[in-house]
Every structure is written in structure tokens, then in C-alpha cells.
């Protein structure tokens, strides 16, 4: 019994030490990425190429999802607001839900599964096929040349994608609320305009999406860079990217919301 307890204790200890070690390694990796970002800004075309593959190629899923989320909000919102006779406020409900929460959060979740997983798989495979090693041996720093441009591309793409998601959502809400159900167009737009505050709502939403972009891309890059160079290693790393990023987005969202909208 004592021996079993000792083994359990030692296993828990190992797990904890491993996790802390990995966290330290990830922080060091992130610090190195930030320190070696000079190349990304000196040769901005490297970042633009990555914005294309993680940002532009994610557009379809963002646009379509944004539209549908907005349309559902329009329907659900109308049903609820009608009960209180305030269906004119549908525009406010749709816009605030999207700009403050759904835009940044859902767009980041979609970004994690579409672009984050692709980044992890790509970096993991580059490692498995010795391409990262080859860069090292060619006197080209893989963190500066491969990791940093992808990192900044993610940080830049995320707020743009969240903005597009929100815009499409508002359009979806308009389609259902105004065009389909017949809510008054004037009050839909004017109440929205009056209620949505640039600093409190829009800027806070943008800050959230920048933080999410930072977190998702950093997690995806680290998981790829740290993946064991085997098929199983890369597939596990890809799964971990999606799971860890999604949890990080939701947890960060709570913390950010608590700070941003305290007492609003």
C-alpha cells in the first residue's frame, strides 16, 4: 500500500515537473520568436506570404460562419425581444453580441482549427523531413525565417478575420431581421449606431482578437516545433494545438471580459 502510494506520488511529481519544464521551454521559444522578429519586419513579404496562407485562405470559413451566426442571432434575438415589445433593438443585440464576444471568440476558434492546425502540421512536417535542420545547416535561423513570419501573420490576420466575421454577422442579422421578418430598417441601424461604442465595444473586441491571435499562433508554432518527428507525433501535436488553443481562447476571453466590461 505504502509502495503504491509512493509510486502514485512519484508519477504525479513527474507529471508536474514535466508540465513546468514544458511551460518554461514554451516561454523560451516565445521569447526567442519575439527577439528574432527583425527579419520578419525587414523582409515583410515573408509575413505577407503567411498572411495569405493563414488569413486569406481562412476567409471562406469565416465569412460563411459569420453570416450564419448573424442570421441565427437575428432569429433568436427577434423571438426574445418580441416578448418585451422591443424588437426595434434587434440591431443593438446583434451588433453588441458580435463585436464584444462572438466575433473575436468564434473567429478565433475557427482560426485555431483552420490555420492553427495547418501551422502545426506544416512546422512539424518540416521538422520530421529535416527541413528545419537543413535551414540551420545553411546558416539560416529557422526561428527568424520560418517561425517569426508565421507568428506575426497570425497576430495581424486574427483581428481582421474577427472584424470580417462581425461585419458578416451584422449583415446576416439584417437579412433575417429586416429583410425577412420586417423589423424597421431605420431603427435597426440607428439604434445600433447609438448603442455601439467605439472604445468600449469595438476597440475592446479588437484587443481581444489580437490577444487570441497571439495565443493561437504561439501555441500552434510551439506545438509544431516541439512535435516528435514522426507521423504520430505530428498528428498528436495538431490535435493538441486545436484543444489547447480553444481552451486558451475561452479562458482568456473570460479574463479579458472581466477586466474590460467591469461595471459597464
Amino acid at each position, binding site marked *: 500500500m505504502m509502495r503504491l502510494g509512493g509510486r502514485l506520488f512519484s508519477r504525479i511529481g513527474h507529471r508536474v515537473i514535466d508540465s513546468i519544464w514544458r511551460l518554461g521551454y514554451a516561454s523560451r521559444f516565445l521569447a526567442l520568436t519575439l527577439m528574432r522578429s527583425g527579419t520578419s519586419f525587414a523582409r515583410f513579404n515573408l509575413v505577407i506570404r503567411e498572411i495569405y496562407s493563414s488569413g486569406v485562405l481562412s476567409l471562406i470559413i469565416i465569412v460563411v460562419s459569420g453570416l450564419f451566426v448573424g442570421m441565427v442571432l437575428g432569429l433568436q434575438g427577434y423571438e426574445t425581444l418580441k416578448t418585451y415589445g422591443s424588437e426595434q433593438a434587434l440591431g443593438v443585440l446583434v451588433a453588441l453580441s458580435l463585436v464584444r464576444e462572438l466575433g473575436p471568440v468564434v473567429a478565433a476558434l475557427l482560426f485555431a482549427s483552420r490555420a492553427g492546425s495547418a501551422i502545426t502540421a506544416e512546422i512539424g*512536417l*518540416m521538422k520530421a*523531413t*529535416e*527541413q528545419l*535542420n*537543413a535551414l*540551420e*545547416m*545553411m*546558416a*539560416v*535561423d529557422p526561428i527568424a*525565417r520560418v517561425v517569426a513570419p508565421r507568428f506575426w501573420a497570425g497576430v495581424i490576420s486574427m483581428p481582421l478575420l474577427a472584424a470580417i466575421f462581425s461585419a458578416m454577422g451584422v449583415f446576416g442579422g439584417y437579412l433575417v431581421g429586416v429583410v425577412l421578418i420586417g423589423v424597421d430598417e431605420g431603427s435597426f441601424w440607428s439604434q445600433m449606431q447609438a448603442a455601439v461604442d467605439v472604445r468600449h465595444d469595438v476597440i475592446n473586441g479588437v484587443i481581444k482578437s489580437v490577444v487570441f491571435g497571439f495565443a493561437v499562433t504561439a501555441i500552434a508554432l510551439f506545438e509544431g516545433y516541439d512535435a516528435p518527428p514522426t507521423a504520430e507525433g505530428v498528428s498528436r501535436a495538431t490535435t493538441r494545438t486545436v484543444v489547447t488553443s480553444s481552451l486558451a481562447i475561452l479562458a482568456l476571453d473570460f479574463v479579458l471580459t472581466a477586466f474590460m466590461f467591469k461595471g459597464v
Partner: protein
Amino acid sequence: MSTDNLVEIRNLSFAYGKRPILQGINLVAPRGKVIAIMGGSGCGKTTLLRLIGGQLRPSKGEVSVAGQLVHDLDQQALYQLRRKMGMLFQFGALFTDMSVFDNVAFQMREHTDLSEAVIRDLVLMKLHAVGLRGASKLMPAELSGGMARRVALARAVALDPMLIMYDEPFAGLDPISLGVVGNLIRRLTDTLGLTSIVVTHDVHESLKIVDYVYFVSEGAIEAEGTPDQIRASGLPFVHQFVHGEEDGPVPFHYPAADYGKDLGLGAHK
């Protein structure tokens, strides 16, 4: 250090954690020669290349390339030295998102200020030397194993290095590609005045092209000599390796408990 030797390794030991990989290695690569490091899989050959390239640090001993102790260099000096080294990886390690042309041009674009017109001419010349000028627009996925290895070779010599290291250049190639790659290694070494270190377990192909051979077994140099000396060697390990014998100093069976006991035969006694 002798100026005739581009690479000198003295009393080198290396361990991953507590697991020793290499012990007391002494090795030289004279300028203009092709030397081979041979040994079975997992004997530490690739680790030796990584130590020469400065990707790993020795636990003991010295590695010097062109008179510089590789493990004492800071990152900038190490990168300066690596610009004069080329490395051919086991399966080519071509950048899969770039064409053959861009792969060969990669280092020129990263490290030089040459104009695109000059780079174009240089890349075509390098590709012509490996017989693949016509394949410059192909993507790596469209190449056979042998072609990929040749493109990687053109990429390795892109900046006219002084040293090229080959990690298993013959692995998985058909007999024609095997001969082509072997001859290219010899020809490029002679015409460009390079020094080549080939890590391989392909005895027959490499003995045809190399000047000197080191045999590594269990992390130590077991034998060395010219190809003729190796062929004539009476050492049991070298004999087993050169003739591809199943059993010998390198046993066929992985260490295991007594066979009879494992099958439970003792119980019937």
C-alpha cells in the same frame, strides 16, 4: 592543427544525457579528399556529422573545422562557418513549398546580394552539373528519390562550400541513381576542390569513390584505412560488414533471455 586537414576531431566523446553515443573518436578529413564514416544503423554516424556542423556540443574532446573549434563559436561565428559548409540530408530535405529552382537559389537569396539574373545563371549551372537543368520548374513532390538527392546536392554546393557532409546519400536509391550520386560526389569534390565526408552503410558503392574509410561500431572507431586496406582487412567486424554476413561480432540476435526458458521448455524437464 595541420593545414592539410580541413576537419580534425580529437578524442571526442558525446552522450545524450547519460547514454553514451560516441567515445574517444579521432578522425581527420584532409582537404580535397572524400572520406567515409561507415557503421551499422544507430552507431552514432549521423551524430558525428551533427557535431562537425555544430548542431551538438561534445561532452569531451575537440572538433575543429578550418582551424576553428566549432563548439567554441558563438551563433554568429558558427553561422559564418556554416556558410562554407554544405550538407546533404538523408532524404534530401528539400523545401517542399518551393520549386527545384528556388531550392537551389535559396542560400544565394538569403546570404548574397546577387541580382536575380546572376542567381538564375548560377542556379542553372549548378543544376546542369547534377543533370537536372530541365527539372528546374518541378516541385520536390514531382521528383524521384534519386532526383531529389541530386537537387539537394546542387543546393549543397550552391555557395561553393569548402566542406560537404553527406548523411546516407545512397539510402533507398535504385542501382542507376546509386551510381549517379556516387560519381557526382567524387566529381564535385575533384572539380570544385571540396572536402567530402560521407556517412553511409553502403560499403560497395562508397568503397568505389572514397579515399579513406573510418569504421564506427558502438560509438568508437573500430578500424580505418584506404578502400584497398579495408577490403583486405582481417578484422572480424570489418569482414562481417564488408561481406554483409548475418552473424559475427555484430550478432544477429538482439540480447535476450535463454530461448528454451522463454518457450517454457525447462518446465517439461
